[in-house]
């Protein structure tokens, strides 16, 4: 018995070693990015782990660097925050509202709306790219913040997730609240939302992440330098500034860190919510 216990202990240690090694491989690209963002410019992309470090790359982002053109990196960071937060907030708000209607309000035509949402969700979105762009142009929103926010103000996935979750909340709660004279807005705010915190964490995080890293749409509808998101700016600088890899790594770090911080903040609720979302 002692032998088999030792054997299983050994197997467990091996398991931890393999898991840790694999994790290091998976996280290494991030590590590579961070190290290169601080690396001396002569060592960037030349060593697995640089030996000389500098803050020059980050400084370059703020000053515009040797080319003398002040690049709106800082500006673009705030553009990203503005666009992502506004868009995500709207997606959450509308997601909750529509889901409440689809799950708890028995209105005529509900099944039709419900089926239409599903049809919309599973329709290949690729067909919509060009005409959506034209809609934005026609209504005069081209090259505005709204162009990045309004077409991304509704998420079918959020509606779908909330609808499923709300369906699982017993109607008794709602009826009781209604007897007490609560309005539907109040019910939504006071009963439904507090009960769905964990799923909200998951939806919020996924939507924010997707919005924050969007490239194609944001680069199509906005042209002005001062309105570009950080992701788009980074993408544009990728080519012509190829000789300045340091600042590109620094910008990558600045683009990646906020979303990881968000994940860390909501991480606990996130795991609970994932459990439900996968059912």
């Amino acid at each position, binding site marked *: 018995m002692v032998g088999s216990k030792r054997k299983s202990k050994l197997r467990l240690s091996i398991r931890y070693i393999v898991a840790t090694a694999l994790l290091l491989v998976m996280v290494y690209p991030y590590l590579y990015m961070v190290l290169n963002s601080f690396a001396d410019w002569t060592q960037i992309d030349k060593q697995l782990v640089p030996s000389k470090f500098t803050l020059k790359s980050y400084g370059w982002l703020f000053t515009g660097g040797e080319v003398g053109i002040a690049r709106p990196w800082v500006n673009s960071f705030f553009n990203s925050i503005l666009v992502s937060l506004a868009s995500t907030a709207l997606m959450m708000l509308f997601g909750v509202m529509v889901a409440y209607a689809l799950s708890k309000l028995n*209105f005529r035509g509900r099944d039709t709306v419900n089926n239409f949402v599903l049809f*919309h969700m599973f329709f290949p979105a690729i067909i919509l790219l*060009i005409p959506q762009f034209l809609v934005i142009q026609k209504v005069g929103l081209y090259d505005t913040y709204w162009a990045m926010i309004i077409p991304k103000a509704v998420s079918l996935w959020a509606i779908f997730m909330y609808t499923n979750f709300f369906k699982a909340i017993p109607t008794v709660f709602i009826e009781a609240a209604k007897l007490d004279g609560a309005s539907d807005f109040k019910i939504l705010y006071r009963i439904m939302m507090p009960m769905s915190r964990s799923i909200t964490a998951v939806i919020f995080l996924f939507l924010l992440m997707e919005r924050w890293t969007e490239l194609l749409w944001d680069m199509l509808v906005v042209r002005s330098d001062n309105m570009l998101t950080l992701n788009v700016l980074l993408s544009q600088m*990728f080519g012509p500034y190829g000789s300045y890899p340091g600042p590109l790594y620094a910008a990558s770090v600045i683009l990646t860190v906020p979303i990881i911080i968000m*994940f860390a903040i909501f991480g606990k609720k996130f795991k609970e919510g994932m459990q439900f979302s996968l059912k």
Partner: protein
Amino acid sequence: MINKQNNRLGWLFASPYLIFGLIFFLGPLVWSFYLAFTNWDLIAPTYDFVGFKNFAKALASPGVQSSFWVTYKFMLLFVPLVTVMSLAVAVLVQGLPKLKSLYLIGFFLPYLSSGVVSSLIAKGFLSYNSPVNQFLRNTFGWDIDWLGSPISALAIVGIILAWKFTGYYALILTSGLESIDREVYEAAAIDGVTDRQRFWKITLPLLYPALYTTLILSFGVTFGIFTEVYQLTGGGPNYATNTWQMEIYNQAFTNLQAGYASAIAILASVVTFISIFVIRKLLESWGKRNGWV
């Protein structure tokens, strides 16, 4: 209970979606079918109707043909890779008595990356003087133009995507594994089942619902590849990584052929729709045949 008040409120609460769906889904949908039969160039005020000419041109063009095949090539590469990796991670982490969540979070981090950033890292990592290429040059005398040759360009984009999605799918699979009753394993252990038998006869069948989810998701990913290809290869070399999105983007916004690009977009969505449908059916019948559903 349907009453007047509920009716009004229902439509009121659903109205954000209804307005949005009209402006950004139904309208554009009709518009794209209309555009597909014109030769509009995205700028000129006038255009002509050209019938099915755009479709005929698309079917004969090397760009569209490559998009069709490139999607399946990515599928062949990406789906097995990400499935095996996420399964490995899930099974590995599931057996850890401590720090399980911490490991899962670690593996999930790549999912949070922007495609622009991961492409940038890959490009730097594979640049001419990078440690990897120096090593290959000095040790084997190999000089590999990673993004310049069709197979490796395809492989690199596939690997970047697999890197991104592995942790996410592992998380889904772990939830599947957690739902498996411990007693089943204990009973199997008493019966003297080997590790391999345990995986194929117990874990996999019980994991099937979660696996089905990750497989459908990963097949879906291959139809929407854009950022990494745009950033790293632009669809090249010689159309080797020219995905549907890349082709549509190029035709519509680089060559300004809005009508022609709309026709391609329609073809792309038809192909996507049919492919996903067939894949779903195949996966379901695979599950049924093995008695997993």
